[in-house]
């Protein structure tokens, strides 16, 4: 156990000396970017500002759900899982079927996430493990899976968009001081915070989490302490897939699910974790916040160039912090 404890301070997971400066950097960049956009437009419409911030936060929530799984898998397995978007897609479609069959949104959310977790686990056990340690073959294998999933979902669910639909309880809007906003989007943000907190507790306060963090730093030493590292890797891969599946249902409930979303969320995950710092869950949260907010402000104030602005943020962050906002400098 002492080795495990000794390993944690170097780990980039939750805390570290870089945390404060990193967080400050996030806030600074976000504030500067938003201020620049607001000033450019000369807009001081308070309602528009509130809606823009809320949109940014709810997008960030969804991005975090998806990207946290991606960063977990990367941090421990060192696999850039290019099938991560496919887990999102599969989660959305399975969730739609469950909602359609049972009418229960909660069942769709949990059921689809578990199904995708099982799918990810099987993929890791049966295929990915065979090419362990070879990044080229690992990447190609995950790309292969993504193509297979895209064609399978197309043949099972067809090419039309499917709308899972928000749960009846949240399927309306609320009005505060003239601000009209969707209840579901706010609940989505809550879900993301809940998941983030659960991940924090899991990684920081449980024995499993401690082992995972140790595995990030040095899997060989960890194995010598008697921990069954391969089993742990599989569990983490399953957990990452679970989170993507969860994201698929959460996103598909208000943005609908359709072909092509897999590539979109893979790109979002890459963007978020590269900005936030590869392998760091707090980094994923910071990256999701930054990307969500900048995207939302850009859509309002520079609609034509919103994609450019969003990726511009990645370039700026990488130029000044190549390891990402909260990535450990190695």
């Amino acid at each position, binding site marked *: 156990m002492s080795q495990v404890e000794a390993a944690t301070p170097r780990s980039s997971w939750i805390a570290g000396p870089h945390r404060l400066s990193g967080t400050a950097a996030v806030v600074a960049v976000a504030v500067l970017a938003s201020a620049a956009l607001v000033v450019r437009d000369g807009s001081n419409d308070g309602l528009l500002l509130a809606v823009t911030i809320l949109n940014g936060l709810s997008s960030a929530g969804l991005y975090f759900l998806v990207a946290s799984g991606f960063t977990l898998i990367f941090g421990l397995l060192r696999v850039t899982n290019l099938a991560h978007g496919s887990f999102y897609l599969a989660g959305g479609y399975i969730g739609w079927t469950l909602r359609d069959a049972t009418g229960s949104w909660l069942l769709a959310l949990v059921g689809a996430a578990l199904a995708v977790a099982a799918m990810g686990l099987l993929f890791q056990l049966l295929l990915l493990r065979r090419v362990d340690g070879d990044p080229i073959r690992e990447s*190609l294998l995950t790309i292969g899976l993504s193509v297979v999933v895209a064609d399978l979902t197309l043949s099972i669910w067809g090419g039309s*968009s499917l709308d899972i639909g928000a749960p009846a309880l949240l399927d309306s809007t609320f009005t505060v001081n003239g601000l009209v*906003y969707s209840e579901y989007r706010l609940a989505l943000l809550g879900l993301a915070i809940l998941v983030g907190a659960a991940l924090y507790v899991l990684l920081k306060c449980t024995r499993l989490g401690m082992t995972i963090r140790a595995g990030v730093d040095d899997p060989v030493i960890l194995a010598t302490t008697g921990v069954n590292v391969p089993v742990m890797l599989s569990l983490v891969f399953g957990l990452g897939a679970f989170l993507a599946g969860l994201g698929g249902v959460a996103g598909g409930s208000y943005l*609908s699910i359709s072909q092509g979303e897999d*590539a979109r969320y893979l790109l979002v995950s890459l963007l978020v974790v590269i900005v936030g710092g590869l392998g760091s869950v707090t980094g994923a949260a910071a990256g999701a916040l930054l990307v969500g907010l900048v995207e939302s402000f850009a859509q309002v104030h520079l609609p034509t160039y919103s994609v450019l602005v969003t990726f511009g943020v990645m370039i700026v962050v990488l130029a000044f912090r190549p390891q990402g906002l909260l990535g450990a400098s190695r």
Partner: protein
Amino acid sequence: MTRSRTTRSVVLSLAVLSTLAAAGCGSSSDDPGSPTGGGIAGSAQKDSGAATDGVIKIGLLSTLDGAYAALGQSANQGAKVALVNAGATLDGTGDRDGITGLSIGGQDVELVIESSDATPDAALAATRQLVEKDAVDILVGPLSGDEGLAVKEYARQHPEVTFVNGTSGAQDTTLRDPAPNFFRFTTDGAQWMAGLGAYAADDLGYDKVVTIGEDYSFPYDQVGGFMAPFCADGGTVPDKIWVPLGTKDFSSYIATIPSDVDALFVALGGADVLNFTKQLDESPLAGTPILGGSISVDGSVIEGLGDRAEGIISAGPVAALDTPEYRAYADTLAATFPDAPPPGLFDVGYYIEMTATLDALDEVEGVLDDGHEALNAALTSLQLETPVGPVELDENRQAIANNYLFEVRGGSSELIETVPEVNQTLGLDRDEYIAQPANDRDNPSCP
């Protein structure tokens, strides 16, 4: 060690990812369904797609990957109905299944199917594959606007191949600087709006309309086709919102729309109107009337919106007409593909283009060894009676055809007006119209 491996794997992944994106996510690979039986005969003449080698190869290009996959499925079904009508037997009802049993002028007709994901580079890659590797004689496609512009440029460099459009509707594929071997028997995105702008200004009395569309050539033309008559009749468009293709979350864009608009013109593809309208109704603009583009108001949107869909006006080139041609087409489509939705823009469009191709091939008895001269001449002078009315080509090889105006009433899209024989300059003076700036983000403008 860790660092170099990490960096390498990320760089590698990004490289592979971008390569895949360029190749249409890799799904356009060879597939067992496409016919390769004639490959030996074909490969002997690989250097020239134009030769009379005993096989007439027709390439079919649509979008079976990405966000427009459902449209591509319909497109291929429509094209195959034309082949079935000509006497072909389908290998199966799958999207990529080929045909057998059709011969023209003593030559077997072979169908080679490729797919893109609606981006121009993927369409170009698939076109290259069809022309340079599969050596097709004729290519039917592509499906979407920017793809058409890319394929037109490619067509110019390959005069030995005849290109017949799919449903791509960018105006400048044929209006300005056309390719001599590119034919379009369907109307373009601006023609598809004929009737809507005038109806909104005169019959509905709208003064102020904000448009929202995806940021590429086809929606530019749809918005342009709507605005030209709308602005001429006194309407104003204070703002035009362009969103990236594939946008699902419109809420931030909706927040910028002024609160005093009379209606919104929505030129989004497929079910995105469903997302847009639901998000609109979660904003202070809830209930604002909607005018729809040609591919915006389909059955799934009407079903998904329920009562909210009532009164949505849209325009397009395909209507459920009470003519023998339409009924015959609808019956064959339903009999050949039992799971197919009712006739729509994409299957009818590809059906018309493929029918024109086969009719012209019949007329020249399959002769292609004259550098396609006879075939191209036959295509140019072809007059078709299609399921959606008569079609003929203008001097730029662009269709002149009817357009239809619809209103959602009682849960379905009802025909309310037929605009006959719409030409590419929307009835305006040709030279004057071409002299105007092409439709884009900023043009036309009437704030």
